[in-house]
C-alpha cells in the first residue's frame, strides 16, 4: 500500500511523467519562505542578539572597571582614615601636653601669688601689731599720767601747788640761765 502511494505520488499523472512540477513548487515555496523569514525575522533578530551580546560584554567590562575603581577608592579611604586617626592622636597628645604645661604654670603662679599674698599679709599683721603696741604704750602712758595727776591733784594742797609751781619756775629760770 505504501509503495503504491509512493509510486502514484511520484508518477502523479496517468502519463507517468515525474511530478517535476511538484518538486519545483516545493523548492520554490521553501526558498521563498526562507527569504521572507530571513528578511523579516532572522536578520533583525540576529542584530538584536548581537547587540545584546555586545551590551552584556560591555556591561561586564564596565562592571569590572567600576569594581576596580571602588576597590581603589576604598584603599584610598582606608589610608586617609588611618592618617586622620594618626592626626587626631597627635592633636590630642599635643593638647594634653599643652594642657599639662598650662595647668602646671597656673598652679605655680597661683602658689607664688599665694605666697606673696601670705608674706604681705604677715608683714601687714606685724605692722598692725607694732602700731597697736605703740598706741597701747602711749595710751598707757597717758592713762598713767592722768591717773598720777589725779592722785597728785587729790593729795596736793594749794600751798603745795604753789610750791611746786615755784619750783618749776625756778627750774625754768635755771634753764634759761644756762
Amino acid at each position, binding site marked *: 500500500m505504501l509503495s503504491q502511494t509512493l509510486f502514484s505520488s511520484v508518477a502523479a499523472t496517468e502519463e507517468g511523467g515525474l*511530478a517535476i512540477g511538484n518538486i519545483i513548487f516545493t523548492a520554490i515555496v521553501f526558498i521563498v519562505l526562507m527569504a521572507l*523569514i530571513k528578511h523579516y525575522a532572522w536578520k533583525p533578530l540576529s542584530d538584536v542578539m548581537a547587540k545584546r551580546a555586545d551590551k552584556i560584554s560591555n556591561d561586564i567590562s564596565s562592571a569590572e572597571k567600576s569594581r576596580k575603581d571602588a576597590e581603589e577608592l576604598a584603599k584610598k579611604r582606608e589610608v586617609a582614615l588611618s592618617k586622620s586617626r594618626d592626626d587626631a592622636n597627635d592633636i590630642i597628645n599635643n593638647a594634653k601636653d599643652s594642657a599639662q604645661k598650662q595647668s602646671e604654670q597656673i598652679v605655680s603662679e597661683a602658689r607664688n601669688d599665694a605666697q606673696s599674698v601670705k608674706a604681705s599679709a604677715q608683714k601687714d599683721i606685724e605692722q598692725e601689731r607694732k602700731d597697736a603696741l605703740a598706741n597701747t604704750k602711749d595710751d598707757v602712758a597717758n592713762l598713767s599720767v592722768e591717773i598720777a595727776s589725779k592722785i597728785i591733784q587729790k593729795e596736793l594742797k594749794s600751798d603745795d601747788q604753789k610750791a611746786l609751781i615755784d619750783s618749776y619756775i625756778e627750774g625754768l629760770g635755771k634753764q634759761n640761765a644756762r
Partner: protein
Amino acid sequence: MNEPVSTFKLFGLTFDIGNMVSLVVVAAIVFFFIFALSRKLQIKPTKKQNVLEMIVEYTNGLSTNSLSAKNAKPYGLYAFVLFVFLFISNQLGLFLEVAYNGVTYVKSPTSNPVVTMTLAVMALGLAHFAGVSKLGFKGYFSSTYLKPFKLWLPLNIFEEFANFLTLGLRLFGNIFAGELLLGMVSNLVVTHGVVMVIPGFILGMAWVGFSIFIGTIQSLVFVILTFVYISQKIQPEE
C-alpha cells in the same frame, strides 16, 4: 489506495493542486507565526521574543551539535526555517484536512513523498555544496567517495543515494502512516455507526497525540540528519 488528485499542466510540467495548496498554507502559517513573534524586537526580550529566541536557540543547538559554532553559523537560518516548516507541515494534517469532491486539498505536505524527497535533495545538495566550497572539489571527492580506500567508491556512491532515500522516505513514511491510520479510525466510526463513536473518539485522540509526538520527532530527526550529513562533508574523518 490511490487517492485521486486534481492536477493541471503548465509548460509541460504537472502540478498537483492539493499539494500546492498545502505547501502554501504551511508556508503562510510559518511566515505569519514567525512574523508575529518577531515584531518589536528589543535587547531586553518580551514574551513573544523569548518564544522566538527559544526556537532559534534550539535549532542553533541542533546545528552546533554536529558542527563547530563557526561552521554552523551560515546554516542557522536554514536549520530554523527547516525545523519550523517541517514541524508545522507534520502537524497540519492532524488538525486540518480539507477535501472537496474526493480530492484532499489541505493536508500535511510531508505526507507526500515528492515533497519530502525534494527537501531531502535540498538538504543533501546543501551538504555536498558545503563540502565542495570547504575542501575544494578534489578534497570533497576524495573525502566523500574514496574513503577509507579507493575500492570503496561504488559503496560510497550507493551510500549517498541511500542517504537521500532514507532522509526523504523516513519523514514521508512516518507522516503518511499517521494520516492513514487517522483516516482508518475515522472510517471505522463512519462505517460502524454510533456504536463506535466513543471507542473511535478515544482511539483517534490517542493516535493524534502519538502523531504529534512522531511529527515533532521526525522534524527534529530530519534537521539533525541534515547537519550530520553536512558535517560529514565538510569535516572529513581522520
